[in-house]
């Protein structure tokens, strides 16, 4: 059964702008938070320009971010670019990135080399198998995102993360975990949701 947003509501969401770890293609979960790059700062402004086009009065939206620095920094720039006080947003731990446990900060190749068995087991079932060292599985991320969606009662703009937004899009589209795993993780674009239909908005 696909996830559905309550009738009449619109949710806008985006991934944070590009970080240094993204450039180095390293797993970035809860502990290896790195600064936004120049490109990442610019992507945050692009996100603001898309919101300004989609929403007549951006001041009427609720703004909520993952509590990780890269997401909050993106949110501050989005709000400042929209002419709103940079710090006037809430944070919600349910929007945080998947916990990548012992793999945080590693490249895929490094994780595979250091944890060959765990890497293989997880590849076979990302929905149920936790990342080793206290990490999460997709199911746990899906449950907290569904809880976040279920609690929404106003039009909202949210900033989250690569894996978390893939899983969220997959939940709305009723996808399998394999399909969620194969989705892209674009930065500097906005997704909007009404009902269970997710629309992608690119910068002009």
């Amino acid at each position: 059964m696909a996830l559905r947003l309550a009738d009449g509501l619109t949710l806008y969401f985006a991934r944070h702008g590009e970080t240094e770890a993204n450039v180095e293609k390293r797993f970035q979960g809860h502990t290896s938070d790195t600064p936004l790059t120049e490109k990442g700062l610019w992507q945050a402004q692009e996100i603001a320009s898309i919101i300004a086009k989609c929403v007549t009065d951006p001041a009427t939206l609720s703004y909520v971010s993952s509590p990780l620095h890269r997401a909050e920094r993106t949110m501050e720039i989005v709000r400042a670019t929209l002419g709103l006080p940079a710090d006037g947003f809430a944070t919600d731990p349910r929007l945080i990135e998947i916990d990548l446990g012992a793999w945080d900060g590693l490249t895929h190749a490094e994780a595979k080399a250091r944890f060959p068995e765990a890497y293989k087991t997880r590849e076979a079932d990302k929905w149920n198998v936790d990342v080793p060292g206290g990490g999460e599985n997709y199911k746990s991320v899906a449950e907290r995102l569904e809880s976040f969606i279920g609690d929404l009662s106003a039009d909202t703009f949210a900033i989250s993360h690569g894996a978390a937004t893939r899983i969220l899009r997959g939940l709305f589209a009723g996808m399998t975990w394999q399909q969620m795993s194969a989705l892209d993780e674009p930065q500097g674009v906005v997704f909007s949701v009404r009902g269970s239909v997710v629309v992608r908005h690119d910068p002009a």
Partner: protein
Amino acid sequence: MPDFRAFTLYVVRHGECEHNAAGWAAGHDDSPLTERGRGHARANGRALAEMADLAALDFFASSLHRACCTMELLREAAGLPATGYHADRRLMEGDIGDHSRLPATDMLRYPNESPDMWEYVHPDGESVAQVHARVGRFLKTLKRDSVLVSHALTSSMIRAHYLNLSPEEALRYHMPNAGLLRLSMGTETLFGE
């Protein structure tokens, strides 16, 4: 067999035809594109050439005249030969049988006779559920990113399969004659509104 939801689909409705301009429901009752409709097709061809790698795409049209004509104008405007696409009957518009050439707005009335808009079968025609099923069978045959030129109901059914929509949500959509709907990575984007 890869799932078609792994591919990007560019969904186009035929340009405005004479029945559309007259406000008639068409179904399988074909009519030529209007000059305005030929413009819709060409605009979609130019938009497609800008956003996609044409050499990596397969091209499919409904086998109705107005869809094939739209496909050929679209391909020429994109810089491709007019031919070089497949026509497929499973992309034809829903068959509304005896209700062809009635005012398009009347179509909303008939399902009220039987309250189920999804299962209602037009006299000598099809139900939405049947169109949904044949479009689903077609989508399973796709092998890579594709351009699909079809019709209002057919486009809604392609979208419903791709986005995994309930019947109620699927029927809420109306595909315009102008504009190109990109279905990619579980999301949709309408270009050229």
